[in-house]
């Protein structure tokens, strides 16, 4: 299907459109597995662009439509979505659990599905990363990279490299991360994986930023480079991330003064906050509100500062003690 190709090349509206064409025009002619694949794609899109509640709502309908329990694609999708949401909400135990389930699925009786296996370990690495167990995450990612390399899975290769860069960034090892990010970027370039490339560029910018404030200008230009791509085709999370980085670039730039151009910082932050609200991504939302509070502090707007600080606290507490853990598995 063309939609998958577009997903890799990075044009989200094209994915949606092609899938819709398929779902509308060939509804009567296509086999149920193909049709369900189309629906899966649509739901994925929903999750990325409209948040989880919409996606789960659609998922329910899809399950009604394709009741056969053999339908592994929808089942897989469900697990993917649950995993993502758990990660975002900070329910690490559940994420762990789902990751294990993935592992089981991948090495089932019928033989080892290599694609599933890579996905399982990818998710495991991400869970570990979220749990701040960096060395283990890096180990998993490294072994994953060798597997991908062995089986010539270019897309996965690039994303694993990106993940490694991310791991190093979070473990405050920006210099090491840079090499991975650069490798990932060049990988994507050679395979025309534009969206992935844009996110690699974004990570690169984050890494530069982590290296100190004198690299802010360079980071800013990198963000500018990737921004059209990300805003056009990236999901909510990526978009929010790019906005945060943009704001951070401005804030760390010693030549930039907040009081002169508060909009340059506040606009992207507001946008990011909006997107993250839909996504229920507590960690990043907390970051956004923190930055917002800082900015307002600079501007001397006390009331707004307090408000942002309160929101920040809200998200942090939500992240630290997941209250509604039990409802994470239901939807």
């Amino acid at each position, binding site marked *: 299907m063309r939609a998958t190709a577009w997903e890799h*090349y990075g*044009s*989200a*509206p*094209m994915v*949606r*459109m*092609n899938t*819709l*064409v398929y*779902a*509308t*025009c060939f*509804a009567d002619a296509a086999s149920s597995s193909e049709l369900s694949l189309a*629906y899966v794609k*649509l*739901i994925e*899109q*929903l999750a990325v*662009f*409209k948040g989880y509640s*919409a996606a789960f*709502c*659609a998922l329910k*309908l*899809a399950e009604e439509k394709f009741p056969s329990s053999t339908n592994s694609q929808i089942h897989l999708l469900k697990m993917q979505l649950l995993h993502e949401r758990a990660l975002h909400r900070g329910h690490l135990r559940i994420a762990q659990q789902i990751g294990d389930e993935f592992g089981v699925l991948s090495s089932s009786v019928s033989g080892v599905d290599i694609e599933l296996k890579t996905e399982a370990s990818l998710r495991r690495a991400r869970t570990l990363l979220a749990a701040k167990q960096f060395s283990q995450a890096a180990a998993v990612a490294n072994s994953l990279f060798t597997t991908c390399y062995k089986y010539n899975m270019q897309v996965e290769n690039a994303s694993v490299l990106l993940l490694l860069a991310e791991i190093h960034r979070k473990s405050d090892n920006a210099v090491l991360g840079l090499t991975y990010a650069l490798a990932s970027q060049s990988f994507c370039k050679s395979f*025309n994986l*534009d969206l992935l490339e844009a996110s690699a560029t974004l990570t690169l910018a984050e890494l530069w930023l982590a290296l100190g404030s004198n690299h802010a*200008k360079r980071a*800013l*230009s990198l963000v*500018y*480079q990737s*921004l*059209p*791509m990300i*805003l*056009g*085709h990236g999901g909510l999370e990526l*978009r929010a991330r790019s906005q945060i980085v943009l704001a951070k670039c401005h804030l760390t730039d010693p030549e930039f003064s907040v009081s002169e151009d508060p*909009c*340059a910082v506040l*606009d*992207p932050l507001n*946008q990011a906050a909006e997107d993250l609200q839909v996504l229920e991504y507590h960690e990043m939302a907390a970051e956004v509100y923190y930055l917002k509070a800082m900015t307002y502090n600079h501007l001397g707007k006390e009331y707004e500062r307090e408000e942002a600080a309160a929101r920040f606290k809200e998200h942090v507490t939500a992240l630290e003690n997941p209250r509604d853990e039990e409802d994470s598995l239901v939807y």
Partner: protein
Amino acid sequence: MAEEQMEEAASSSAAASGTPFQLQFDKPIPFQIKLAEWNPEKDLLAMVTDDSKVLLHRFNWQRLWTISPGKCITSICWSPDGKIVALGTEDGFVLLHDVENGKMLRSIKSHDVAIVCLNWAEDEPLSRTDKEDLLSYEDRTTRFFPPAPVMPRIGGLNSGDTGLADENEEAIQAFSSASCQRFNILCTGDKDGCICFSIFGIFPIGKININKVPIHVQSSGKRTSYRLQDVSISKVSLSRNLHQLVLLCSGKLINTDNLSLSNDLSVGVHCLHLDTSIFSNRKNELHQVSQQASSIQDLVEVVRASISMMSKQWSNAMNLFHEKFSALPSLLTAHGMESSSEDEFMSLLFGTHTSPALHQFLVSSLGEAGLKRIAKTIESAGRELRIVVSEHLQPAVEIISFRLAELRGLARWRSRFQNIGLDEKLMDGVTERVGMLVVQVERFSRVAATVLYLFQNFFSWVLKCVKILLSEPTDQVPSTNSELVVIFLKFLLDKDPIKQLVETDQIFEWDIDTAKHVEHLVVFGGFTDTKFLERSLAKQFSELEESLKEAFLMPFTTVSSQIHCQGLLPLYPVTSSDALSSTSTPASIAFYKEDKDSQHNASSYSSTDYICFKIPDGSLNLRNFVAVIKDLCNSCSTSSTPSLSGFLLHIPVEYECVDLSLYKDNQVVLLLSGKSSSESAGRSWMVMLQTENLSFSQLSRTFPANYYNLQELEVLELQLDTDYGKVRSIPHPLSTPLAVSASRGVACVFSSRRHALVYILDEDEDEDEDEGSEME
């Protein structure tokens, strides 16, 4: 004759103390030339004759092509890269022609009245020094898609036209790919005071009406606002960093605060300075948007042509079919039968009986040959349809949707793109529409395939019947499916779903199952407009067009609203009687790079505008004067240092200024022709003055006590043996136009005796080389 004149020229050059400007040649031309312009990149001269033919000559006077666009041409200019020549016509069209072969690439109607002046300015790469602001933006479309589809050709009979159209399309393709290299803007000014801006000459980005632009003038601390009425623009010039626009126009200046103040004197020629910094500040964004948008517009044209062609092809085929088969009902009534043709075919199919009417119809009026012919026509029409869909319509729609998706991404970047008017909501709407169109195209191709198959099946069945009726062997005929024949008789004999789809106002019926399905898909992120399948393909397309128009109008209006008037300088009054002729008085505007002192603004260079014009005799009580003014723009922006300055040049009484032009390095080239009454009739002079050697005097900007204060300027007497610059005599009475090319260093003058003379301005005649270099 020519030799004799050459001799004369030579002798006169010997007589003169020095002969600057090397004469390249002196050629008679069979036309009266109205306009002439040198190509900025190559040694090519484009000329417009009095009867609006366009000629392109090489430097060695070899003619490349001649075209006659059939419209009265009122202005001409070259694109900055020299690949396109733009012509402005009397009825407000801008025609873009290819330099290679003179073929018309585009014709854009942007004005309602005659386009008087054109100026095509390109952004200078040097003007951008700050690197980090540079957005590397790449058009991804070419990486993912094969070359964009072109308009479908209409095959068959009218091949005479298509040959031309085909080459034209190739040219358009080359044009759209070539023109997007560097950012440039074409401005066009018309007789009614409107100025249009279009990026790459094709994507309209702004339009302002000088009649409606408020002009604020700061004079002695007081702010007065003026307005110009009955404006007719005579000259526009956009600076090379696209930052400012200077224009000359005639009109009546009105004080909007105090209407009673205006008098007769306020009608005159004015010089306006407009702030177009939106173009330079938002250059990258405009470039990206216009690049995407203009190619989308191209593709929309392709889709339109495809749809109309499909409709034509199919209706031709169907007309033949209906013509033949309409004989059947009339035969039935002639036989006194009340059944419909559908019933008759049904009974034939089920073997009950063959009515005499049907028998007669099939055997005699239709016949085997006739049947085969119809079958063939429909089949070939169907094949054409399929080709058009797969090679033109479908890829075009797909690329449109891709490009729109890119634009939508840009629109989301609010901080950058909102202020050039790229609206996210509108773009979302358009993306939605194009998605529906893609679905429609897919559906259309399915419907078409089904219909064609049914037709094929039906025809072979009828053929079989005819053979049986004639008791001929039927083993040659392919077997048929009688179920499909029934479907055909039920749904296709009287109806035409293909026609329904390609014609605008048909409502297409769609079964409930699909409707439900579509509604269901909304939950999954499908199109919220669930009724879209009821629309026909053509209707969907026109809706897309509408929303596209709306979306692209936003940048247009937003940018237009950000062009402001920065300053005004009344030049000279004209009495209303010669207001018309005032547009034809020679004038020239140019921007020069000024090397500012390092302490001033070290990093950026600034460009200074020079305005040079002839003051019509009698105006300002001056006779035979030419004025040169510089620094209007800077004087408007920084009021602290009034730098506006200029001088008047008095031309010897026995000569009159025919035309003038500004030339590189702050020079002015004047063409002086002897007045017919004086002894110097028939002789002319070309004078090049170095303005730096001339003393500029400051011009105060006081309003409104004295509108026209040009008299304040210092007057310089121009002597032909002056050492201000270079002078060369030309043994012809001269006429307009003077075509000077700064980048090529050449000038072409036209004599009223239909001669063209080309001079190389930078080189002097060989024998006088020493003296010439001395003068430089």
